[in-house]
Each structure stands twice: as C-alpha cells, then as structure tokens.
C-alpha cells in the first residue's frame, strides 16, 4: 500500500481517503472481527476525518492520523459495548480447526477470528505491523505508544497465536494471551 505522505490542501482529502480505504477496512476487520461492523467503523472514521481536518498537522504523514482516528472510534464504541465483537471460548472452539497449523490456516476468516480473540493492545499491534506492514514507529504513532512497546506487543501476539495453533493441534484448550 502506498501512503500519501503530506496532503497539501483539504481538496486532497477525498483522494487520500479513497487510497486508504482498503487498509482502513482491513485494520477495522482485525479490530472488531465483523465485516459489516468494520465497514461501519470505516464510515465513521471517514466522517470524523472530515470533521477533524482542521486539526491535522500537515507536516505529519496522513496514514497514522487516519488509523488513529479509526482506533479511537473503535475504542469509544468498545467502551459503549455495542459494537465490539467478543469471541467467547465456545465460539473459538466451534469455529477454529482443532488440527490447525499456521501452514494450513489459509482461511482468512479463521485467521481474523484468532486475531480478534487477542487482547486489544496485541490485536491492533499485530494487525498494523504483521497484517498491514506498518513500521513499529508508524504503529506506535497510531496507538500512542513508543515503537518498542509495539515491538513487544507484536512479539507477545505472535507467541500467543503460535501457542494457540500448537495447543489446538495437541487438542488442548488455548490459554489466554
């Protein structure tokens, strides 16, 4: 994905939004786990970006700014507890393959469900860095934490997901991340 770095004027907003829509959708999908709710989240993000354009620092890249808006919208909705997609253990057990391995898990839906089952801080970090190719610095800017924190979270998320695959392959219930 090619990010637009420095929007010169508000007239460029539509183009920048359009260019980032696919990645915003993917990030939202990884956060809330449900395609329809994820697109609602992107829609809210687009509207919020229009409202907040005057607060955007034009010396900063646009991509972290947009993704931070989406993240904030998600967290606000999650606090209101009406949009968050929680995966219960029962749903995980029913939906995830007991003999899954990373190699065999080609099904995008199942993979996203596993990501969605992670705690939010790990979920957003793994989505941005491993899923969407953000640098640790960019992801840190989105999440409001240092790059080192993102790196640690990605490592923990990776370990949790690998352990989950391993435990499922062994027929055990996965432990919490």
């Amino acid at each position, binding site marked *: 994905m090619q990010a637009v770095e420095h929007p010169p004027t508000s007239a460029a907003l539509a183009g920048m*939004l359009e260019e980032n829509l696919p990645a915003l959708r*993917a990030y939202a999908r990884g956060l809330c786990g449900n395609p329809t709710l994820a697109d609602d989240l992107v829609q809210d993000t687009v509207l919020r970006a229009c409202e907040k354009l005057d607060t955007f620092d034009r010396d900063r890249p646009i991509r972290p700014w947009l993704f931070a808006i989406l993240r904030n919208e998600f967290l606000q909705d999650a606090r209101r507890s009406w949009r968050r997609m929680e995966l219960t253990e029962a749903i995980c057990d029913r939906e995830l393959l007991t003999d899954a391995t990373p190699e065999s898990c080609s099904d995008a839906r199942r993979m996203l469900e596993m990501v969605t089952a992670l705690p939010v801080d790990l979920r957003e970090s*793994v989505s941005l860095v491993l899923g969407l190719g953000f640098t640790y610095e960019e992801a840190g800017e989105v999440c409001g934490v240092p790059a080192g924190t993102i790196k640690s979270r990605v490592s923990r998320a990776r370990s949790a*997901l690998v352990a989950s695959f391993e435990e499922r392959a062994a027929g055990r219930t996965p432990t919490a991340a």
Partner: protein
Amino acid sequence: MARDDNKPGDGGKPMNLPGAEQKSASKALSTALRNTYDSVLNEPVPQRLTDLVARIRAEEERRRKRDN
C-alpha cells in the same frame, strides 16, 4: 515491512516448541497473517464507502469553486 526478532524476554515463546520449530511456525504465522490481510485489502470496497468519498469529493469541488 517491519520485522520482529522474537527475542527471549520480548514476549516469550511457547514452552513446547523447540527453537527451530518455533521460528518456522512464527514465520508461517507471519505469512498467514499477511495473506489474510491481503485478502481483505483486495476485496472490492463497498459502494456505501465509495459513495461517501464521492460526496466528500463533490463537496470539496463545490467549496473550491465557491472560494475561487
């Protein structure tokens, strides 16, 4: 794309995987994750979102003409 070294003390490893297997599983996981997100990236963007951006573009045009 950022890389993650998965160093000891930086999150730990599953206890039951030897180092080489862990590295292989971790690499496979990264590939699976990237493929998963790529599949979403390659989906067509829903009409309601493209329509919304089109309305923003039209509004920008109207504003630009008015300001000029």
